[in-house]
């Protein structure tokens, strides 16, 4: 009797569901440890988590609101990772996208409302995209690793934003606080429902996911991105312009992250500051990988991560457990889902069974 791993060709929907469920259960079991350490009842904590994430229209809207930037940064990572372009810089691209939105949307440009929003979004997309095209070009020209460069650029961008919101972009009415001038009303993404923070960015995210899905499956560009991502050498040999395709990927990836920034600044906050994102760029990587880089899956994974965070954070307040538990729960869930993905790729075989040849 021995145990062996065998790769699976593809996992059925049923199996996917089972594995997701098992991962969720495992995560909950692990979460019990810190909850018990804090001297509370895990069952109560679970109930409060669910309530905190979905228990009311408000809770649900908050979950969706948090999922919005995660969908976009998740898509940014998914499209880049598919092409084996390791964009770890979505955080910086998000800020640059937000910056562009503020630059065009704070009154500098006077456009009819119908044009203003698209302009703001396009500006954010292009700015974020450019922010990723730079490391992609550096990689092509100099061979410098994009993981490290995009990571470092995140720090540069945040400092740059700080510099701007303390300097040229500073809102004179902010009483000295480092924040930018606000967006004008026409440049803001409308709320989906009155009094709730959910905004049209969510729709943008879902549409972007659908568009990417279509792009990957139905377009020549998607075909070329897949080929370049899976086997650069074969793609080059077959005449696919590898470098140009990579730049397109970079533009799309950075652009999506930039859109996330537009969403936060135009949909939620109204002005730019250096604390716009609590790490949405990094979480996007997690979201994309949980989704197996699938665009539609990214939407679901973003919802999952958002719900876990919002639910756990709310639970911490209701139980009096330290609010650091929210990140802890997200981390544990992530690792459980990650281990689960292993069982989608491999099956365990026990003993010696004979298989018809």
């Amino acid at each position, binding site marked *: 009797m021995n145990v062996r791993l065998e790769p699976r060709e593809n996992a059925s929907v049923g199996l996917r569901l089972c594995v997701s469920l098992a991962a969720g259960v495992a995560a909950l079991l692990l979460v019990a440890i810190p909850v018990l350490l804090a001297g509370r009842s895990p069952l109560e904590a679970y109930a409060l988590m669910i309530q905190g994430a979905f228990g009311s229209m*408000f809770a649900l809207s908050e979950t969706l609101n948090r999922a919005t930037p995660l969908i976009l940064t998740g898509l940014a990572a998914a499209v880049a990772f598919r092409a084996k372009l390791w964009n770890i810089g979505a955080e910086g691209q998000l800020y640059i996208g937000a910056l562009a939105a503020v630059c065009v949307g704070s009154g500098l440009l006077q456009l009819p409302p119908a044009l203003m929003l698209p302009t703001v979004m396009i500006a954010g997309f292009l700015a974020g995209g450019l922010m990723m095209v730079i490391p992609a070009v550096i990689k092509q020209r100099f061979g410098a690793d994009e993981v490290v460069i995009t990571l470092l650029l995140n720090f540069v961008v945040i400092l740059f934003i700080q510099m701007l919101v303390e300097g040229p972009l500073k809102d004179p009415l902010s009483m000295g606080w480092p924040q930018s001038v606000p967006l004008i009303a026409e440049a803001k993404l409308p709320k989906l429902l009155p009094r709730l923070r959910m905004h049209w960015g969510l729709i943008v995210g879902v549409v972007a996911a659908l568009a990417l899905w279509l792009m990957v499956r139905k377009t020549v560009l998607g075909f070329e991105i897949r080929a370049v991502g899976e086997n650069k050498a074969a793609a080059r040999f077959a005449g696919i312009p590898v470098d140009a395709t990579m730049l397109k990927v970079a533009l799309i990836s950075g652009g999506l992250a930039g859109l996330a920034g537009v969403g936060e600044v135009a949909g939620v906050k109204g002005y730019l500051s250096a604390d716009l994102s609590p790490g949405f760029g990094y979480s996007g990587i997690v979201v994309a990988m949980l989704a197996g880089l699938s665009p539609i899956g990214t939407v679901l994974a973003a919802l999952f991560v958002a719900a876990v965070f919002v639910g756990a954070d709310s639970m911490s307040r209701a139980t009096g457990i330290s609010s650091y538990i929210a990140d802890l729960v997200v981390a544990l869930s992530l690792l459980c889902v990650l281990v689960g993905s292993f069982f989608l790729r491999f099956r365990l075989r026990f003993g010696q069974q004979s298989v018809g040849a």
Partner: protein
Amino acid sequence: GVSLAQDATRVAAIWTVPVEQQWASRLHLALVAADERGDIDYVYSENITNTDYERVMREYAEQGVELIIGEAFGVEQPARAVASEYPEVSFLMGSSLPPAEPNFATFDNFIHEPSYLTGIVAGMKTETNMIGMVGGYAIPEVNRLMNAFMAGAQSVNPDVRFSVSFINSWYDPPKAKEAAFAMVDAGADILYAERFGVSDAAKERGILAIGNVIDTAADYPGTILASALWHGEPMIEKAIEDVKAGAFTASDYGIYAFMEYGGGSVIIDETLAGPEAVAAANAKEEEILAKTFTVEIDDSEPASSQ
């Protein structure tokens, strides 16, 4: 939906920083004390990002908390919007903007007065005429205190020069310490310790430091020349009292940080400062309390002397 204790007012605080942070810690301590006295039922959330801030406010409001204390600096608009939607809840928020009717009161740590007094002490004590100042970020509540300190020092010693740097982090004591060392190397003999880490550098190099907001003299024996302290108690107690009495209004509670209300005080180590400096500071304190002298509130970013 949880049933409330009979007489304890339910108070929640929402901090964007860990409660170790000096600023939050002053109010947190006062709230914990009130909780221990049984006056209030205190809960808090720390390290809440501005992105999450509004949600947390709403969650507490929904839970039936009566008084919410926190910082609206990064979330002025949404915080005010939430307050207007929960008129039955009282909000007491750190803010640079005026209060908003009917339930949104504001405050800030206005301890520029004691900061000015510590400046007098430092200005008289410095021998190199060089004072090093290390701050986190150049934001109004930091700038204000630094500027008052500098004004105080200059009032007694026009030759004094300042070296100012910001480390761009609230919590990087090793880095703050390095920045302080750099100032000592450049000739500073007194350090203004806006951040944790600066007094450590002073102690290690055997020079003096000026404390800010909290009293750390016991941790750095022989190092803390003087400190400008912020006391959260007067404001917190006033606010609780107002809530209990149903008299909470959208007013500026920032005044409770002023010396006249006991929200700010200076503490000077006489053995380090010497009687002369103490006397000068005390004299100025009299003037402030007597309102014959007003310390200017200057929120602009302080800069090194050229």
